[in-house]
């Protein structure tokens, strides 16, 4: 086998490993990776401008979705907001959560040594596994975790068909 051929096979193997790793990363993280756009008033003063310029444009908004017989429960990690800063909608079979993580207005000036948190407007769309009755939906926000409870639509909630023996 020529050196070139060995090299090519080595590259193919490396590429497959990379692809597998990338797929895992995509599945695990990129769905939670959310774009943050500059919000209103982000450029009002020097400190906030500096923080916005230095902070990453992407943040992780990790979600979990759980389905039981009667409802779908979605939890979203979105720290640093007030409950009224969320906008929650159900469009067909997609839950859309948007909001703004504002940069706090602070009296004291200073400079940043580390800036890892993302700020600004975000939107996260989470596909739902079934039809829900959005008129009966409820949401609460505790310790930076948003919980949205979506009762299943009556026509899917109790579609359990018993099989008769004969």
């Amino acid at each position, binding site marked *: 086998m020529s*050196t070139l051929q060995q090299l090519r096979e080595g590259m193919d193997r490396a590429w497959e490993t990379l692809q597998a790793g990338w797929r895992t990363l995509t599945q695990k993280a990129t769905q939670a990776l959310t774009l943050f756009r500059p919000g209103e008033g982000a450029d009002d003063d020097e400190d906030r401008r500096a923080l916005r310029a230095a*902070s990453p444009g992407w943040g992780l908004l*990790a*979600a*979990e979705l*759980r389905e039981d017989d009667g409802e779908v429960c979605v939890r979203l990690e979105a720290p640093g907001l007030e409950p009224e800063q969320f906008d929650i909608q159900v469009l067909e079979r997609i839950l859309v959560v948007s909001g703004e993580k504002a940069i706090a207005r602070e009296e004291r000036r200073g400079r940043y040594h580390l800036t890892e948190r993302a700020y600004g407007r975000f939107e996260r769309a989470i596909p739902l596994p079934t039809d829900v009755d959005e008129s009966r939906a409820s949401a609460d*926000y505790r*310790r930076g*975790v948003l919980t949205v409870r979506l009762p299943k639509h009556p026509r899917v909630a109790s579609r359990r068909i018993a099989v008769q023996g004969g």
Partner: protein
Amino acid sequence: MSLIVRDPWQLLDQWRKEMDQVLGGHPMARDDATRVVGSDWMPAVDIKEEPDRFVLHADIPGVQPEDIEVSMDNGVLTIRGERRHESQESTEGYKRLERQHGVFIRRFALPDSVDAERIAATGNNGVLEVSLPKAEKQQPRKIQVKA
């Protein structure tokens, strides 16, 4: 004619560096000295220096206040906490699981001018704020060089 052989591993390394750049130094995508072995996840942190104090903000959604520890030792600030599963619910029925549970530990070296006695930590809406007041400035001691 000479054949130039490129080391594929060097290419991989280059690719990894480029990916790191694309991901923009996000805490999840970076090897970081502030992350401690045994840490299951890593919260995003901002540190600001004001004239009389340092302020640290960490995003730790879903962590109960009693599960957070903040300590200062030899100029190193350690924040440690644990995100537990919502225990009252069964583990069945999950269709999507992106949240990471378990322990996080991060350490930051701070100038030793911080007054460890006056460090205060508060939590609000899943954000931990640690205020680290600077110690009173000590007068620089002049040392006379004897002739």
